[in-house]
């Protein structure tokens, strides 16, 4: 058991440090903004309703969505690209 646990921790650290920080905000073009918004509009009713009623973006301030979407990304294991689209959509509403 200890060996398995140690192996998990070691693998996590190794693979994790190889990868780049996940959610680093990049400067994206207006066209990319639009693409993310459209994709977010498609995903919002699907991903959110999988577990609970989809809540409108107007309920929270944009900075709050940054936190809540991180919480939901972890809880729902949402793909990172889809998370960027969702937060773009939620912040714009």
């Amino acid at each position, binding site marked *: *058991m200890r060996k398995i*646990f140690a192996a998990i921790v070691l693998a996590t650290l190794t693979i994790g440090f190889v990868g780049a*920080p996940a959610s680093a905000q990049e400067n994206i073009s207006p066209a990319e903004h639009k693409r993310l918004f459209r994709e977010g509009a498609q995903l919002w009713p699907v991903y959110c309703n999988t577990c609970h009623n989809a809540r409108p973006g107007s309920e929270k301030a944009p900075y709050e969505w940054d*936190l809540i979407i991180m919480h939901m990304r*972890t809880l729902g*294991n949402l793909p990172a*690209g889809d998370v960027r689209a969702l937060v773009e959509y939620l912040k714009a509403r």
Partner: protein
Amino acid sequence: MPGRRIFSIFLLAFGLVALSLVGLARAADSDGSAADLKEIKSEMRQLREERKRDREVIHSLEIKVQQLETKDSKVETTTQQLHATDQKLKETTVELQQTNAQVQTLQTKVDAPIAASEFGDAISRYLGTHSFTVAGAAGGSFNYDQQSGALDGVSHVSQNSFFFDWEPMFLYRPTDWIMFEGVISTAFGSTGTGADLSTADFQIFLNDYMTVVAGLFDQPFGDWYESQSPMWVNRFVTAPLPFGAEAVVPGGEIGVQLRGGMQFGALGQDVDYTVWGGNGPNFSSNVLGAAVSSPTAVANSQTNGKSIGARFRIYPLPVDSQMGRLELGASTYNGKWANGNWFNSWGVDFNYFIGNLQARGEWMESYRQMPEGMGSDNRQGWYVQAGYFLNDLNVPGFPDKLNGYLHRFEPLVRYSGVNQRAVSTDDIAGATGVGQGGFQTGLVPDFGINGSPATYAPHAREVALALDYWITPSIVWQNEFDLELPQNGGAFVSPSGAVTPAGPIPNDRAFLSQFTIGF
């Protein structure tokens, strides 16, 4: 020669006359010199006076010239000052024009509606790079349970009471790849007012496919504990039986997770994984049927076993297919308890929704190796539920307003059950205090718990009917009617280990009404 004589005589006479005239002239001169001298003196005086006057005039003129020069200098200075003032005035005029232009620009900006993104960015700058918010839920409920059946000599009476629960979730985000999350459960429940730490963990987003979660977390086994247990998310007031009084798998863990998800096909076609290790399972006692306990509920020194778990889920339907969203998942959680005895569990789950219809279900099984040659402690549990929003229901003849109210209703039904070899009577009596972690304590209702004795039956069954009224997507008034329909079989175990067959257990009924706000 007479001519020469005449000429000489004439010349001589002329000479004599001339000399006489000179003598006369000299005499006259000596008489006029005094007068002339006076006159000259007088003239000289006049000249001196005139000179004096001229000097005075010159002096006066010089003074005037000096005065004029002084005045001229002053005029020149004044002129320069005027010039400088004029220059400043021009500069001030330019500045004023620029200020006016800026004011005009600002006025235009003020008058023009600010873009939401710009406003958001401004607020974000104001708030700083470290952000913090509070989410969570609060709810108040009234629970009634008929408690129509007895259980192995445990006394009981009909129960009804009000409860309140507040579960704030604190989110702190120091960077865009690290977050801290903590949930505190505070309640006025059957054991009085109390607070409990539900979850507290760090989340580190290593890359697009890997997130590390470290701390105290809900068990990532199936869907219930993690995603369905929040009161505003759960469509029912109560938990399904496998997650209630006789939980099949522990509800929480302290340890480390690695998790992530990725798209494998079209948009919406995803797979995800969660693997974790932790302190391992705990139980209220070493007898058969002892309740599982959360890591924070029971201080147990028997924690050397540790645990590992894994869950995989797949979402095969693309968003564009218009076929709804389907989730299929499988989980396992294994570890050692009591410093050496194995606990193994596994389960499968599904979730499907399309339009106004949503259905989900889980099936799970656990095996607990018992000490001292006792038979193994096996448990099974399941639930399946479905709900339908009446969004599109328009009753002919009903006013629009009434139809509008109807649209907010969601009727639901759920069937759940548990099979286990035995149940510990200590847990039924509430002696173990396991309920502090969110599980049932004894035969009393609590927030989200109906407290029915029938839920402690080794082969418990429950049909729950609910009618939710959604005021907003996260504010709901829920009403639930529970039919407890326990099956025969199984046994009760005393703290000493004595086993008594359960025998027939009466059916029971309960009603719960709860108002919940998710925030």
